[in-house]
Every structure is written in structure tokens, then in C-alpha cells.
């Protein structure tokens, strides 16, 4: 008994010290600019008390952990842990109904919402699309791709370059951007897909960075760090009607055609609806793929590559198809992103974006589509919390830790649509 206490005491002191060491610089020290120099401000008494209190709490918790844990176990379990509700929510048929209900709400909602929230929702939809695309590569085919943002960038720049140099419109560029990204996915996938696991992850990470650095340095073509802007006349139109305030004189505008006053809200809602349409198409595509021979082959390959080869399935071709389809979805998302921003710069496509998309897939539950949607909402909301922006990464980390403890399989893990033998 006494040895257990001393052991706990040691780890308790260590943990409390760790809290002090980490939280004092993070919370206690502030840098503020005074003129052109920086001044370090110490913590207020209140903050110091808080840090001290937290350290004491950790100390007590670590010391008494063994006694508290049994008491904790007696508390009623969270329903989400395991049980009927969780199981019900992850059934493919339930997910389909939930998605249908969400689509109805999503269609009507923007007409009553504020401009800012519709804008954030559009961003969420972009991430849903990216998440669904990466889900094919990582969740279904089991290929850890850390350079997914590269294909996103290819899509965005394809549209920007085509619009900037050739004056092509969004609707023409959208499929071209998807095809371009697919082509890149195919070309990059070809040499790397014989690698596995960690090696594949590192090589794809490298490819993502190479694409970004290329875009930054091909100044003549891509405008370098300044990026490329997209002229108003090449932005998305509704059957040729522009939503911009200022367009060339010969171009019909939405407000001009319907003879209403210009309102920037129209444009925001229009972009939102395009994003929704793209997401729905993506969902349809992924759902069909799952039930096609190729979708089954992806999963089989993820489970046992050797068995697949012994049965005459060509692993390279199957992996390549997952990689290419995933890349093309990123390309669509990228060209839409460019249309929304009106400007593409290499800095939009850093590694942290790849990490964010991957986090959405993992957080949602590998392979699960509703999970990806939920996770995209959570992650973008976290990112957009302006009041808490200083602590964003901290919250991010906390969410990840809690997920690891409570739902390591993701928010809504996938249940596969099983094919049944009917008799």
C-alpha cells in the first residue's frame, strides 16, 4: 500500500510540475508590441492563482487516482460509448435518412441565415468535399496520404490559370480542374503506390510540399507568392448571369436581369448552393463506388493485399484508382475554393491543410460519410472561433485527446453496407 502511495506521489509531483512548466509560459507571459519593440508582460495575480490551482488539482488527482477511478466507474456510462443508440446511428440506412434530413435543412436554411454564417457553412462544405475525397484514399483504400492538399492546390490553380490566361468561366473550368487533379494523382500515384504505410505517408507529404513550392516559384505562370486573382467575369454564373457588382458592360447580371437591387448576400447564397450541389454529387459518387466492385476491391486490398494478389487483383491499378478519384474530388473542391476566394496563393495550401483534412477523416471515423460531415462541422467551427483564436490549437489538442480516450474509432464509425445472399 505504502509503495503505491509513494509511486503515486512521484508521478503526482511530476505531473504538477509539468503543468507549471507548460502553463506558465503559455498563459502567464504575454508579448505586446510597444512602438517597434516587443514587451513581455508578466501574468496578473489572478492568472498565477489559476495556474497554481490547476497544478494543485492535477497533483491531487494523480495522488488519489486509484481511489477515484472505482467511484468514477460506478457513474452511469455515456450513452455514446457503446449501445443501441450509437449502433443505430452508424447503420448505413439510418445515415442515409439523416443525410437526407440534413440536405433538406441545408437547402432552406441559407435564406434565413446571416451572411457570415452562410459563408462559414460554405467553408464547411468545402471541407466536407475534401474529407469525402480523402476518405476514399485513407478510409476505404487504406493509403495514408499526407499530401492531399497538393491536389486541392492543383484544382484551384487550374481554374485560376485557365481563367486568368484564357478567360474561361467557372463551369467550364470545374471539370477541367477535376481532370487536371486526377491526372496529377495518377502521375504521382504511379511511382509511389508500391510503397506502404509510413513510407507512402512521407513520400506523399513530400509531393504536397513540392507542389506548393513549385506554385510559389513558377512566378511567370502562377504569380509566385502573390498568387493569381480571378476576374469577376470568370466567376461562377447562374446560366450566364453574374452575381458580381462590377462586370463588363456586355455581361448580364443577376440583379440586372431580375431588376432588383444589388445585394452581396445573393452571391454568398449562390456560392453556398453550388457547394451544396458539389457535396451532394460527391456523396452520390462515394455511395455508388462503395457498392461497386471497385469499392469492394479497395476494402479487400486494405484488409489483405497478399490475398488480393493471389486472387488475380492488380493492387497497383486498384490503389491508383482510389488515389486518382480522391485527387479529382480535391480538384473540384480546389476550383470551387478559388471561385469563392477570387484569389489563389500558395499559402492556402500548406501542410496544415492536409493535416486538417486528415483530422476530419480520422475524427469522423474512417470510411464513414456522416462522420466526415460532422467532423468537418466541428473542425471548421473550431477554426472559426475568433474569440478563442489564441487557444485554438490547445482546444484542438484536447479534442484529439478526448477522442482517443472515448471514441478511438471516430465520431460515427463506418458500418459497411453488406451485400446479402438472398435465397
Amino acid at each position, binding site marked *: 500500500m505504502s509503495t503505491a502511495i509513494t509511486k503515486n506521489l512521484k508521478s503526482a509531483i511530476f505531473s504538477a510540475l509539468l503543468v507549471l512548466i507548460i502553463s506558465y509560459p503559455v498563459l502567464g507571459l504575454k508579448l505586446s508590441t510597444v512602438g517597434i519593440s516587443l514587451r513581455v508582460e508578466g501574468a496578473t495575480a489572478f492568472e498565477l492563482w489559476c495556474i497554481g490551482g490547476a497544478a494543485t488539482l492535477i497533483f491531487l488527482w494523480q495522488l488519489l487516482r486509484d481511489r477515484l477511478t472505482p467511484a468514477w466507474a460506478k457513474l452511469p456510462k455515456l450513452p455514446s460509448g457503446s449501445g443501441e443508440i450509437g449502433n443505430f446511428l452508424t447503420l448505413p440506412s439510418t445515415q442515409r435518412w439523416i443525410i437526407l434530413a440534413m440536405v433538406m435543412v441545408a437547402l432552406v436554411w441559407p435564406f434565413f441565415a446571416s451572411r457570415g454564417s452562410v459563408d462559414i457553412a460554405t467553408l464547411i462544405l468545402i471541407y466536407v468535399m475534401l474529407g469525402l475525397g480523402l476518405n476514399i484514399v485513407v478510409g476505404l483504400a487504406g493509403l495514408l496520404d499526407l499530401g492531399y492538399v497538393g491536389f486541392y492546390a492543383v484544382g484551384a490553380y487550374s481554374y485560376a490559370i485557365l481563367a486568368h490566361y484564357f478567360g474561361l468561366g467557372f463551369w467550364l473550368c470545374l471539370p477541367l480542374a477535376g481532370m487536371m487533379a486526377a491526372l496529377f494523382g495518377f502521375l504521382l500515384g504511379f511511382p509511389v503506390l508500391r510503397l506502404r504505410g509510413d513510407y507512402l505517408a512521407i513520400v506523399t507529404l513530400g509531393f504536397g510540399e513540392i507542389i506548393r513550392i513549385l506554385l510559389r516559384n513558377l512566378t511567370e505562370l502562377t504569380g509566385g507568392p502573390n498568387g493569381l486573382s480571378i476576374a469577376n467575369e470568370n466567376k461562377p454564373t447562374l446560366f450566364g448571369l453574374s452575381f458580381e457588382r462590377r462586370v463588363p458592360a456586355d455581361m448580364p447580371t443577376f440583379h440586372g436581369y431580375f431588376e432588383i437591387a444589388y445585394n452581396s448576400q445573393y452571391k454568398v447564397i449562390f456560392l453556398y448552393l453550388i457547394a451544396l450541389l458539389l457535396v451532394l454529387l460527391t456523396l452520390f459518387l462515394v455511395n455508388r463506388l462503395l457498392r461497386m466492385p471497385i469499392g469492394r476491391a479497395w476494402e479487400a486490398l486494405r484488409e489483405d493485399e497478399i490475398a*488480393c494478389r493471389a*486472387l488475380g*487483383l492488380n493492387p497497383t491499378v486498384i490503389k491508383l484508382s482510389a488515389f486518382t478519384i480522391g485527387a479529382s474530388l480535391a480538384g473540384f473542391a480546389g476550383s470551387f475554393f478559388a471561385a469563392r476566394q477570387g484569389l489563389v496563393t500558395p499559402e492556402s495550401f500548406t501542410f496544415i491543410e492536409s493535416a486538417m483534412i486528415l483530422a476530419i477523416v480520422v475524427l469522423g471515423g474512417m470510411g464513414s460519410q456522416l462522420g466526415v460531415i460532422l467532423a468537418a462541422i466541428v473542425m471548421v467551427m473550431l477554426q472559426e472561433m475568433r474569440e478563442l483564436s489564441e487557444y485554438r490549437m490547445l482546444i484542438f489538442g484536447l479534442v484529439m485527446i478526448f477522442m482517443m480516450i472515448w471514441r478511438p474509432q471516430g465520431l460515427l464509425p463506418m458500418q459497411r453496407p453488406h451485400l*446479402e445472399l438472398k435465397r
Partner: protein
Amino acid sequence: MSRTILEVSGLSMRFGGLLAVNGVGLNVKEKQVVSMIGPNGAGKTTVFNCLTGFYQPSSGSIRLNGEAIEGLPGHKIARKGVVRTFQNVRLFKDMTAVENLLIAQHRHLNTSYLAGLFKTPSFRRSEREAMDFAGYWLEKVNLVDFANREAGTLAYGQQRRLEIARCMMTRPSILMLDEPAAGLNPRETEDLKELIGVLRDEHNVTVLLIEHDMKLVMSISDHIYVINQGTPLADGTPDDIRNNPDVIKAYLGEA
């Protein structure tokens, strides 16, 4: 005498300093059951791995119906009709039994993207035929009641039978079974023997077998090859082998 379907000569496989297989030759006739026996570590599975393209043999030739196949990648050899099972069962454990069988038919299905996306009639027909074929074989291996169970939850003997059924989905001409009776009880072994007989007689499959169960090997083999420490020791009919003093010394043991 029936036609030679698989002819192997001088097959060697070297792993660094270790010569795992040394000059093995096989001559497999169509619609025969040919067994490979030998002590553990003799290189039997390595021969299988060379034949099915999982290893690139260091030297030697492998001819399938007269066509050289040594050095081809595994999936290409499988497509030529040579499929195998594994010593440790390799099913797709999270998929149902029938889905396991569907995956093996991948090459025979309508895999066109457009057909699948829009569920064209030809796509539906191809899926339905695959399902029927899978059902037929599930019936054959007596697993039809477990069709919709996840493969990982099946009993060991059932998993073994499912693996054989999965191989049959690829319409093979040569089926290579790596210790199919390992871990089976006498009853299940008896069923297996019957199944192998059916495969040979009704489905025109040539069976190449690695097995330690001598009762099974002696009763169904048309021809037996004995391998010891990577080198061929003897070959012949079950009776030849049973009475060969070298084989008795190296492997079978004195009775």
C-alpha cells in the same frame, strides 16, 4: 496419359546465403492431385511462392501449358489460372463470406465506372450472376447458411472451406493448397478429401497439395514429390513413396 499442365525444372530460390530451394522439378498432369511432402522447413511453401509469383525464383523454369511464367507478378499468374490458398488462412475477415467470394470474381465482373454509377442493366446482371455463382459454391462447400456472416467469425474449418471456394471463384485450372488440413479434425479432413475429389473430377481442376497428414496425402494423391532441405528427394506414386527407404529415413519414420 493426360497432358502436362505445369512443368517445373531446376527451380532454385536463394535468400542471401541460404539456398532454400535447390533444383526442384515438377511435372503435373492435367486433372491430377499432386502432393508435395517433406519435413518442416524443407522449402515446400517457398516452391509454392515461386510458382505463384510471390517470389522471383533465382533460377529454373516454370511452364504453364508450355508458356514460361517464371518472374511474372502474382496477380498475372493468378489470372492465368493458378490460384492458391495460404498456410495461415487469409480471408477478408471484416467482410461477409459471400463478399469474400464476390471480390475473387472482380476480374469477371462489369467494372466499368459509368455502368456502376448509373446501375445499368448490364451492371445489375453482372452483379446478380456473380452472386449466383458465389451462392452455388457456398452450397458446394456447405456454407450457405453462413453466407451473410463475417468471415472472421466463422469456425476454423469453415474458414478453410471458404478459402477454397474463394479460389474457385477465379475459375482456376490449377489450385494450390498449402496445408489445407492443418487444424482440422478427422471428420473435417474427410470432408476436405471429398471436396478435393469433387474439384478434380467434376470441375477439371488440377490440385497441387502441400500436406503433412499422410493418410490424406496417400489416399488422394496421384503423384507425390518429396522435398528435403530444399532438394528433391524422391517422387512417385503413393506406393513408391511409402516404401522408399530414403523417404522413410528423412521424413516418414520407421513404422
